[in-house]
């Protein structure tokens, strides 16, 4: 009956559903995009747990990864000489390298160079595709690449790739869910320094403190002894990122709130118009003895149905829009994002938005529903005769 009542005024109902769908499309697209970048940032906090990251002073640091800024490789020896340091791993980390000469607003590839023996420091338990292996020690032409880059460029184990005019062989492909690795090209530190043209320079040093050493004190000691670096403990790195994550979360909430409120208003207006046009129907229901809650529910169901239809359409279009945005900002072909649609827009997020929009439309139906229950046959007949 609710379907038919909506179908009775096809154009108006369709426009309203379309309006709600547009709002939800926007909510999902923006929400999924910001959530994805927040998730990548959060994911980066899983690296270097319990370690101190030393980077050049005054660079932007996102969860321990510096954006630009290099320090001399000799700093490793200086840090090793400080009390309380167990081990130091130098790393060159670059976000600007572009495979295929495509310029992007957001970096799409990450080039990481570090001594081969220290690769497990960053790779952890990330699996390599079967048949693959880590580059050999002192290798001058072997790299491992992330599965997303491999898929995008048709790279297989043993494939040759050219970076900055240098012929390289892919000896391993990293699989797993970490976005950073999916888009990484990892190689020997020396090779990375040559390709990226940072001879004897690194972008960060990962310091493993000795047991029972207080991290904050060691970090402070490193900064005191080496004036041109910042030494960031895990807590400090989290503190740097937290405001960005919070800002993203708040922005998301604000956009969602405004758009859901607008959807609710739209549904309320449609509901009021529909009820005022169907006063005779509601009055008839009242005259034949339909309980008030039946009439109330009837209107709420109709507005909720708009939420259901608008929500489903909005989530479908919003998910597509999120993929298109991701593709646009990274220049990664759209087709490559399709298999990971539920990673970019998680099913839980879809469900959350769906429930919220249905609830908003249901709330939007309250005023029309109250109006419907107040309609009496006496008024209708009196206005007729």
């Amino acid at each position, binding site marked *: *009956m609710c379907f*038919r*009542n909506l*179908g*009775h005024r096809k154009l108006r109902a369709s426009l309203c559903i379309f309006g709600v769908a547009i709002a939800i499309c926007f909510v999902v697209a923006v929400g999924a995009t910001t959530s994805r970048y927040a998730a990548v940032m959060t994911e980066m906090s899983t690296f270097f747990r319990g370690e101190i990251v030393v980077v050049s002073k005054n660079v932007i640091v996102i969860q321990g990864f510096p954006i630009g800024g290099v320090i001399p490789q000799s700093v490793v020896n200086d840090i090793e000489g400080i009390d309380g340091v167990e081990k130091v791993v130098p790393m060159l980390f670059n976000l600007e390298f572009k495979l295929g000469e495509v310029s992007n607003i957001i970096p799409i590839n990450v080039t990481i160079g570090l001594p081969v023996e220290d690769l497990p420091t960053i790779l952890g338990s990330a699996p390599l595709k079967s048949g693959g292996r880590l580059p050999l020690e002192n290798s001058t032409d072997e790299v491992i690449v992330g599965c997303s880059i491999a898929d995008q460029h048709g790279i297989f184990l043993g494939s040759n790739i050219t970076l900055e005019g240098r012929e390289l062989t892919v000896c391993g492909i990293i699989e797993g869910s970490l976005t950073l690795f999916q888009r990484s090209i990892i190689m020997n530190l020396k090779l990375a320094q040559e390709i990226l043209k940072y001879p004897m320079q690194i972008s960060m040093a990962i310091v493993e403190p000795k047991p029972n050493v207080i991290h904050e004190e060691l970090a402070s000691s490193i900064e005191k002894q080496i004036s041109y670096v910042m030494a960031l403990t895990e807590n400090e790195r989290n503190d740097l990122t937290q405001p960005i994550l919070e800002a993203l979360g708040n922005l998301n909430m604000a956009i969602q709130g405004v758009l859901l409120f607008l959807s609710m208003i739209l549904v309320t207006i449609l509901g009021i118009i529909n009820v005022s046009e169907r006063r*005779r*129907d509601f*009055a*008839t*229901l*009242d*005259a*034949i*003895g*339909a*309980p*008030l809650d*039946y009439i109330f529910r009837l209107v709420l169901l109709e507005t909720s149905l708009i939420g259901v239809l608008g929500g489903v359409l909005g989530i479908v279009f919003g998910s597509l829009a999120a993929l298109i945005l991701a593709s646009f900002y990274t220049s990664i072909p759209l087709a490559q994002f399709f298999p990971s649609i539920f990673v970019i827009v998680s099913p839980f997020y879809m469900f959350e938005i769906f429930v919220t929009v249905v609830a908003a439309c249901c709330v939007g139906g309250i005023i029309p529903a109250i109006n419907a229950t107040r309609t*009496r*046959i*006496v008024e209708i*007949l*009196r206005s*007729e*005769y």
Partner: protein
Amino acid sequence: MREIKTVDLTRTYRVGSSTITAVDKVNFEVNEAKFITIIGPSGSGKTTLLNLIGLNDHPTSGKIFIDNVDSSLLPNRKRRKIRLLRMGFVFQTFNLLPTLNAMENVELPMALIGKPQREQKEKTVKLLETVGLEKRLFHRPKELSFGEMQRVAIARALANDPEIIIADEPTGELDSKTAQEIISLLFEVNRKEKTAVIVATHDEKIVNVADTIYSIQDGRLRLET
């Protein structure tokens, strides 16, 4: 419903600064399955009186007793229940729900009392056969003629086996042939189902078949025969 009785029933309306008395101290009684007509010109108070008797409106003064219970003491929930279970309504403009087909319109009062769906279907088909619409079960109101719509409305009014049918100008929108058919139908319902029928009309043909005739003028009711 064994009895409906009104005592000095009055209903006034305020229109601007003046007060209009639509029903003026009406004393009226229905205690048998009779066919009663209330005749009177437009604006005489017929519809207002039927709305009061049908518990769709509240009197300004006076009382309506249903089975000796003062209806003004009944909460709205109970008044609705009485309308749903014990009364059937037929309106001049049919008041069918436009999005429902004939069957669904007739099923509605049964659905509202939670009758099992199979019983609803069986009874609806039977009622629509009774009113001669067995071939129009799935037609929506806009696909029916005025006479057919009024037949559906009568079938709907009979859905919950009411003790009384209140019909307000049921032939007002119909041509004379169709009007005659509707009158016959209401008369048949009255006689076969032992359902009391109160009809407000100015149609002479209805007056001719009535057991009791009242006339109403300026809100005052008078027994004619």
